[in-house]
C-alpha cells in the first residue's frame, strides 16, 4: 500500500474513534474533504485535542513512526494543517518524508 493510502486509512481509524464521542448526526465523514478545524470545521477545542492525540498515537502504532503535532511549527499553522482531513494527511506525509530523509 502506498504511503498516501496508509495515512488515509490511519486517519479514517482516528475518525472511527472520534465519532464514538459524537452524536450520530455529527459523525465526521471518512472523506479527505471533511472539514476539521477553523472556519467551517466541525471540531470544537476538545475535539481538536482528541484528534491531535489520537493521530499522534495511531501514526506511531500503524505507520511505525512517531510524529509531533503540538510543536511550534504545527501550532503556528494550525488552521491550515487541520483545515480538512486531506490537509492533515498531506502534513503527516510531509513530516514522515522529512523523517525518512533526515
Amino acid at each position, binding site marked *: 500500500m502506498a504511503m498516501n493510502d496508509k495515512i488515509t486509512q490511519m486517519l479514517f481509524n482516528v475518525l472511527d474513534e472520534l465519532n464514538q*464521542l*459524537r452524536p450520530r448526526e455529527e459523525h465526521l465523514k471518512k472523506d479527505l474533504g471533511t472539514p476539521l478545524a477553523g472556519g467551517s470545521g466541525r471540531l470544537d477545542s476538545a475535539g481538536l*485535542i482528541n484528534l491531535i*492525540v489520537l493521530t499522534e498515537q495511531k501514526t506511531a502504532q500503524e505507520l511505525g513512526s512517531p510524529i509531533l503535532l*503540538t510543536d511550534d511549527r504545527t501550532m503556528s499553522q494550525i488552521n491550515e494543517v487541520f483545515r480538512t482531513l486531506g490537509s492533515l494527511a498531506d502534513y503527516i506525509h510531509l513530516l514522515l518524508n522529512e523523517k525518512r530523509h533526515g
Partner: protein
Amino acid sequence: MDKQSYTCVLVSDFNLQNFAGYAAHDAEFPHLEPIAAQLGQPVPTLLDTAAPHWQKKADLAVIWTQPHSVVSAFNALLKYEQVPVRDVLQEVDAYCALLANVSGCVRYAFVPSWVLPSYRSVFGVLDMKTEIGLTNTLMRMNLRLAENLEKISNIHVLNTHKWIERAGINAFNPKLWYLGKIPFSNEVFKEAAQDVKAALCGMLGYARKLIIIDLDDTIWGGVVGDVGWENLVLGGHHHRGEAYVDFQHALKSMKNRGILLAVVSKNEEQAALEAINQHPEMVLTLEDFTGWRINWQDKAENIIELMTELNLGPRSAVFIDDNPAERARVKESLPEVLVPDWPEDPLFYPATLLSLRCFELPSLSREDLNRTAMYLSENQRRDLKKSVSSLEEWLRHLAIRVEVEKLHPANLQRATQLLNKTNQMNLSTRRMSEAELMAWAEQKHRWLWTLRVSDRFGDAGLTGIVSLEIRDRKAQIVDFILSCRVLGRKIEETMLSMAIYHAQALGVEEVYARYVPTSKNKPCFDFFRSVAPRFHQQGECFIRDIEHPFPLPDHIELVQ
C-alpha cells in the same frame, strides 16, 4: 428495555467531556444525558445544592476527582512534605461529608476511587511504607472513602484501578492533560462509561439473574456422548483441563452471589448427568443447577421452556455456548437473552465470564444468597403439585405462612431491591432509591407493608410489597408487587385482603388501584381484571367499595 434517557450530573476537577461523549453516544442501554457542572470546581459544586443542576433531582451523578485537588494534605504529600496520615484521613472524612450533602439531590451517585498516574514510580521502594508512601496513603484514603460512603445508600464507589488496568500502558496521557486538562486516555473513559451504565442497569432492576450454559466444549472439553465421561478434558495436568475447572469455579462463584445456573445442552441426558455426577474433577454439582434441558431439541425452544419453568423472562438470562451456530440461533429467536461472543480458546473462558457487565447488583440480600436453594425448593413444590388432585389441595399441603411487616431500616434494602427489579406483578413499576422509598412511606397518609412468604419447603424471603395512599376518604393501592417466585399461590389475594382490611380500619369509602402499563406487567392487569371477588374496572383503574371485606384465602396463615 426502556427508551428513557437518564440525566447524569458530572462533577469533576478535570475535563470530563470525553467521558460525557461515551456516556451519551454509546448505543448500549441505558441512554445517559450528561449535564456538566462547572469545570474544575468540585467543592463549590458539592456545597451549592441550590445550583440549577441539582434542582431537578437528576437520575445520577458521577463525582470524579483527583486526590490532590480535594485533599490538600495529599497534595502536600505529593511534594514529599511530611504530613501525618491522620490529617489526610480527616480531609477525606470532610470530603465525604460534602458528598453526603448532595446525596439527596440525585437518585444515585457514583464516585470513582482515586488513582495516581502509573508513570509516577520515582521512590518506588518507599511507595508502600506507612506515612511516607504515596500509594500506601492513597489506598488508605480510598478505603476510608468506601467505608464512609457505605453508610449512604445511594452513593456507590467505583473502582477506577480496573479501568486503568484495562486501558493499559496509555491510561494516563500527559499530553491530554496539558492540552485539555484531561488526565486519562479515552480507553479509561470508555471503560468508566460502561461501568457506570452497568451499575445504573443494576439499580434499575435490569441485572441478569440466570446463566444458561452448554456442556460439551463449554464446561468441559470433548463430547461426552462420543468419548465417555472418563475421557473428558477437565482438570488434571492439562492447560485446557485447568481452564475448564477454573471456568466452573467462576460459575460457582456467580452462583454463590445469587446468580442462577441452568443447563441447555444437545446430549443424551443420562450420559451428561452421569458425567456431572461421576467425573472427579467436576466443580459444579447437580444441586448447583436450578434446572436443565438435556435433549436433542432446538436450544431456543429449550430455553423458553426452562425460563417458563423458572418463571423468569428472557431479559433475565445469559446464554453461553462454544458453538457459534447455536449462539446465532438463540440470538435470532430470543433477542432479549444476552448471548455474549465467546472465545474459541477455552483458556479465555473464565476471564470472559468474569468480565461480563450484566450482573451488577446495588446490594446483596439474604434472598440473593439463597436464590438457588429457593428455586430447588420450587422443584419440590412442583413435584408435590403433580401428586395431588387439585390446586386447593396443593395449596393446603404447602402450609403457606405470610409475615407482614411495615417498612423499616432492616427490611428497606431488600424492599427497595424488590421494588426496582420486579417487572411482571407490579402495578405501577415505580423505581426508587432506599432513601426515596423510606421518605415516601414515612408520610402520614401513606402505608407500606412488606411480605415474607414461607412454606413447608422453605423460606422465599421478602417477596411482596403493598402500599396505600389515602386522600379524600379514598385509598389508592400504589404498589402491588409480588416476586414471580411466589406467584399463583394466592399471595396476591392475601395482599388485597390485607390492603382492604387496613383501608377499612382507616375509615375510607373506596379502594382503587391504578394500573400503569409497561411492556412487562400485563400479568398484574390480568390479575386485577379476573380476581374474585371482582373489582369494578374503569379503563386501567380498578375500584372496589369496602363495605364487604376481601376474604383471606383459607390456606394462608397471615402473621401481622
